[in-house]
C-alpha cells in the first residue's frame, strides 16, 4: 500500500501540447518542484499555493479515492484518444468484449459520485450490501471538509419507523405548551440539513409519508415543520439502496425517484485485490480518516467549482445530437389523433400500453427505430441533469467545452431510471442483444450510439433548415417587413410540404414539424399585427 497522504502529482491529465489550455510540459515551475505543503510557508501552501485549478484538484480527489480508498475500481467509463489504435479482446463462449481504452478512463462508481459532489446533484448508489456504497458517500462528505465523525452522525439511516421529526427536527416542547400560534413554535432542526453533503442510507426503507417530506428537501431545498421553514441551501445528495427494482421495505415514491440525477452501481469486489484488504485491516487504515487536506473543497471552492462547471459551453453540434436522440424517444405515431398528441405520454396517461400502440404501427423499422425500444420519453428534468453532468464530465476531463464523448459517458447513468425499456420490443428478441435486458447502462449507450449513427447517416450536421428557421425567429421579428414575413412563411410551408410524401414520421421529423408550426404561428401572428397596425 502506498502513502495514504499522497496526492497524485499535477497534471493528472496532461493535455496535448497543441491545446490552448495545455501546460507546457517542458517548462516546469516552482510549484512543480515543491510539492510538499508546509504550514510554515503560510495557510495557502500546498494545492492552493500552487494555484492548482479546481478541475485539477477534482481529478486529484478522484485519483486519491481510486488509489487509496476504493479497492479494485472498474474502469467502465471508457474514452478513446483521437486517432489512437483501440485494443480489445473477446473472451469466452459469448465472445465478451474487453476493451483497453487508449485515453484516460474512469470508474463510474467513483467518478459519478464525485461529479455529483461538483454539480451538487442527487446520486443514487445501488448494489448489494457491503460493496462500499455508504463508504463512498462518507468520503464525499469528507471531501467537503467535514470531519468523518460529523459526516457519520449526519447520515440518515432509512428504517420503517423513521418519522418526519426524526428526519428534520422536533418542535421545542416548551414552545408547544406556551405558544399562542404556530409561528411561535421554535423547531430544533437536525444539523445535517445545513450540510453541503447529505447522505440518506437505504432510502427505500423509509416510510412513504417520510419519503414525501424528503422529496421537498431534495427537490426544493427547504423543510417546513410547524410553519417554520428551513432553507437547506445547495447540497450534493447521496442515497443508497440495496435494490433498485422496487425492493426494500417501501416502494419509493415516483416523484422522489424522478428527482435523482444519476444512478451508479456499486461493483463487486475483485478478489485479486484481497491482499490489499488484508493489509488495510492489519494496519487499521481507514481511508476516510486520512483524506489529504489538498483535496478537500471548502465552501467557497465548492461554489466556484459548481460555477466553473456551469460555465462550460455546450456546443451546438453536441446539443444537436442530444436533441436528435431525445426526439426519437417520445413520438408514438398512433397514440393520438391530433398531431401534438401523438406521443407515448398520451398513451400512458390514458392507461394504454405504449407497446401495443407501437405494435399496431406496421410501417416502421422496429429494429432501427430507437424509440421503439422505450416506453417513455425524456423529461425536462432528465435533460437538465444530462446537460449538467455532461458539463461536469467535460470539466473533469479538462475540456474547454462539452464533447460528444463526455455526453456519451454520463448518459447511461443519468437516464438509468428515467428511460423505461420496452422489453417486449423486437430489438430485445435478438439473441445477441438479450444481455441488454438486464444491462441497462449498455442498453442506453447502445441507444445513443444508434441515434448518433442515424444522425450521421441523415447528414444533419451539414444541413439544418429547421435550425436556420428557428434562429431567424429567435433573432426577433421587430421591424421585419411584410414581404420578408411572407417569404419566410412560404419557406416553412414548402419545407413541411417536402416531407409529406418522402419522410416517415421519425422522432426528429415529428419535433421539427412541431417546431416549424411554432415558427409559422409566430410569423402568422406578427403578420396579422403588421397588417392591423398599417406599418
Amino acid at each position: 500500500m502506498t502513502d495514504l497522504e499522497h496526492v497524485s502529482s499535477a497534471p493528472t491529465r496532461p493535455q496535448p501540447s497543441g491545446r490552448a489550455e495545455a501546460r507546457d510540459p517542458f517548462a516546469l515551475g516552482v510549484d512543480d518542484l515543491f510539492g510538499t505543503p508546509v504550514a510554515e510557508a503560510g495557510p495557502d501552501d500546498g494545492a492552493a499555493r500552487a494555484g492548482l485549478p479546481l478541475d485539477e484538484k477534482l481529478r486529484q480527489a478522484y485519483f486519491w479515492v481510486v488509489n487509496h480508498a476504493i479497492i479494485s475500481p472498474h474502469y467502465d467509463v471508457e474514452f478513446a484518444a483521437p486517432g489512437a489504435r483501440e485494443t480489445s479482446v473477446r473472451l469466452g463462449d459469448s465472445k465478451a468484449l474487453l476493451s483497453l481504452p487508449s485515453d484516460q478512463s474512469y470508474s463510474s462508481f467513483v467518478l459519478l459520485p464525485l461529479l455529483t459532489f461538483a454539480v451538487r446533484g442527487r446520486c443514487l448508489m445501488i448494489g448489494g450490501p457491503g460493496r462500499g456504497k455508504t463508504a463512498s458517500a462518507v468520503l464525499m462528505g469528507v471531501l467537503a471538509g467535514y470531519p468523518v465523525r460529523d459526516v457519520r452522525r449526519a447520515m440518515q439511516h432509512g428504517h420503517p419507523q423513521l418519522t418526519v421529526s426524526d428526519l428534520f427536527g422536533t418542535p421545542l416542547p416548551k414552545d408547544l405548551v406556551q405558544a399562542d400560534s404556530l409561528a411561535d413554535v421554535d423547531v430544533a432542526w437536525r444539523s445535517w440539513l445545513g450540510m453541503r453533503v447529505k447522505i440518506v442510507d437505504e432510502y427505500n426503507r423509509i416510510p412513504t409519508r417520510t419519503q414525501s417530506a424528503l422529496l421537498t428537501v431534495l427537490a426544493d431545498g427547504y423543510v417546513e415543520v410547524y410553519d417554520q421553514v428551513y432553507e437547506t441551501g445547495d447540497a450534493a445528495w447521496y442515497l443508497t439502496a440495496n435494490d433498485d427494482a422496487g425492493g426494500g421495505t417501501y416502494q419509493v415514491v415516483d416523484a422522489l425517484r424522478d428527482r435523482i440525477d444519476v444512478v451508479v452501481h456499486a461493483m463487486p469486489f475483485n478478489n485479486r485485490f484481497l491482499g490489499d484488504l488484508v493489509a488495510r485491516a492489519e494496519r487499521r487504515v481507514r481511508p476516510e480518516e486520512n483524506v489529504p487536506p489538498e483535496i478537500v473543497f471548502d465552501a467557497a471552492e465548492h461554489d466556484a467549482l459548481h460555477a466553473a462547471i456551469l460555465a462550460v459551453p455546450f456546443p451546438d453540434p453536441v446539443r444537436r445530437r442530444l436533441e436528435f436522440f431525445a426526439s426519437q424517444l417520445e413520438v408514438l405515431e398512433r397514440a393520438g389523433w391530433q398531431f401534438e398528441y401523438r406521443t407515448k405520454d398520451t398513451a400512458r396517461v390514458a392507461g394504454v400500453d405504449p407497446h401495443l400502440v407501437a405494435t399496431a404501427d406496421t410501417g416502421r423499422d422496429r429494429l432501427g427505430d430507437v424509440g421503439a425500444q422505450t416506453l417513455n420519453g425524456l423529461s425536462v428534468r432528465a435533460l437538465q441533469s444530462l446537460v449538467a453532468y455532461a458539463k461536469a464530465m467535460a470539466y473533469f476531463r479538462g475540456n474547454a467545452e462539452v464533447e460528444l464523448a463526455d455526453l456519451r459517458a454520463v448518459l447511461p447513468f443519468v437516464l438509468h431510471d428515467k428511460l423505461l425499456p420496452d422489453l417486449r420490443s423486437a430489438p430485445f428478441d435478438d439473441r445477441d442483444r438479450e444481455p441488454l435486458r438486464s444491462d441497462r447502462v449498455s442498453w442506453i449507450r447502445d441507444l445513443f450510439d444508434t441515434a448518433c449513427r442515424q444522425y450521421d447517416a441523415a447528414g444533419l450536421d451539414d444541413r439544418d433548415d429547421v435550425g436556420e428557421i428557428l434562429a431567424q425567429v429567435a433573432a426577433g421579428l421587430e421591424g421585419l417587413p411584410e414581404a420578408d414575413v411572407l417569404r419566410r412563411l412560404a419557406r416553412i410551408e414548402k419545407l413541411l410540404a417536402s416531407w409529406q410524401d418522402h419522410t416517415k414520421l421519425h422522432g426528429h421529423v415529428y419535433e421539427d414539424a412541431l417546431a416549424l408550426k411554432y415558427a409559422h404561428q409566430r410569423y402568422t401572428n406578427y403578420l396579422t399585427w403588421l397588417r392591423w397596425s398599417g406599418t
Partner: protein
Amino acid sequence: MTVPSPFAARALAERARYDAVLARALAHGADRDVLADAVREVAAATDPLATQLEADAFAATCDALVAAVARLAAARRWRAEGPERRAVLDVVPRLAPWLALAPAVTVAAVVDGARAVGGGPGSRGDVTAWAARVVDAAAVGAAGVPGAGPGPSPVDVVRGAVLVAAWRSGLVRYRDAALAAARSLPEPVARAALSLAPGGGGAGAADLGAVLERHAADPWWWPGRVYGDLPTVRLRGVAEPARVLGRFGGFRGFGGPWLSPALVVGADARHPALRWTLLSPAAGGTGADAATDEWTLVADAHGSLVARRPGAGDEVPPTVGAELPGGDGGPAAARDDVTDVSGSAVVDTPSGRVALLSRTGSYDVLLVRWAR
C-alpha cells in the same frame, strides 16, 4: 544518569506528537525497522545543529525532519543511496542559516529538490553539485535574506535558491522558472546557487543581470564555459571546424530513448537553440509505413531532456532552418567528418551558429556550434 542528546530531548518533550507521526507512517506502510533506523540516523545528523540554532528553530527543525522521515519511510523512499535520504542526512545539517529562519520550509524544499534532481519525474541532474550549490547559497547566511520590508521572504529565498541550483545542476525543464527566480533573489544567494564567483575578475564577475539576460537569449553561453575538451567536426560549407556542444539521445537498450536512430526535423522557433524537434519510429513499427513518434530535445549549457511531445500530431511547433548551409538535407557523403547526416536544424545565436545533427549510423544526435 546520561543526558539525552538535543534531538532526543526534543523527542522526549514531544513524545506524544512524535509517536503519532511515526504510528501514522507505520499505518501507511512504513517498515518498522527502516523507520527506527531512519530516526536514529536523523538524530545523529541533527544534534550538531543544537549549538548553531536557537532553541525554537532547533525544535522546529527536529519536528520537520521527523515529519519528512515519516513521509519518506511510508512512501518507501528512505533508501541507502536515495537522494532524499542523502539530502536529509548530509545537506540539511549544513543549512543552519536557513533553518534559523524557516526550518520546515527548508527541510521540505531540500527533500523535494533532492527527489527532483536525483531522478524524479523528468530529467535527472547532478545531485552532488546541486547539494554543494544549496549549501553555498545557505552559507551566504542571514545577509542573503532580507528582513521585514521589501524583497523576497525567507520562504521565497529558500525555495528560489533550491530551484536555481536544481536548474544549474541539470534540470533544464525548470529553466524559465529558475531564471526568473535568480533575478528576484538577493545577488549573493543567486550567485552561490549558480556557482558564479562574485568579484575578483573573470567571466563570473560580470553583472548578474547581464549574465542572466545573455544566457536567456543564448542557452549555450555561460560565463567561463569553454567546450574545448569536446571534439570538433568538419561540415561541408562551413569554413572552420564546428565544436561539439553535446551528444543527446541514444539507444534504448543502453538507457537512451530510441529504438531506431532519430531524425532531426527542426528547431522550435519559440525557443531557439533550446528546443528541437525529432522523429523516431514508434515502438513496434518497422518499414517505410511505420508510425513515428515526435520527440522534443530540450537542452542548454547546464542540462538536457529528451521526451516524447505529448499529444504530438495536434500541432507542430513552428520550426526554423532545417538545413545545414551547404547541404541538401539528404545523406551527406560529401560532408567531411560527419558523413551520415540524416537531418539537421540550424539556429543563429549571439555566440555563433548552432546545429543539431541526426545521423543514420548513430542513435546519438550531435549539437555543434561554429562562428558565423
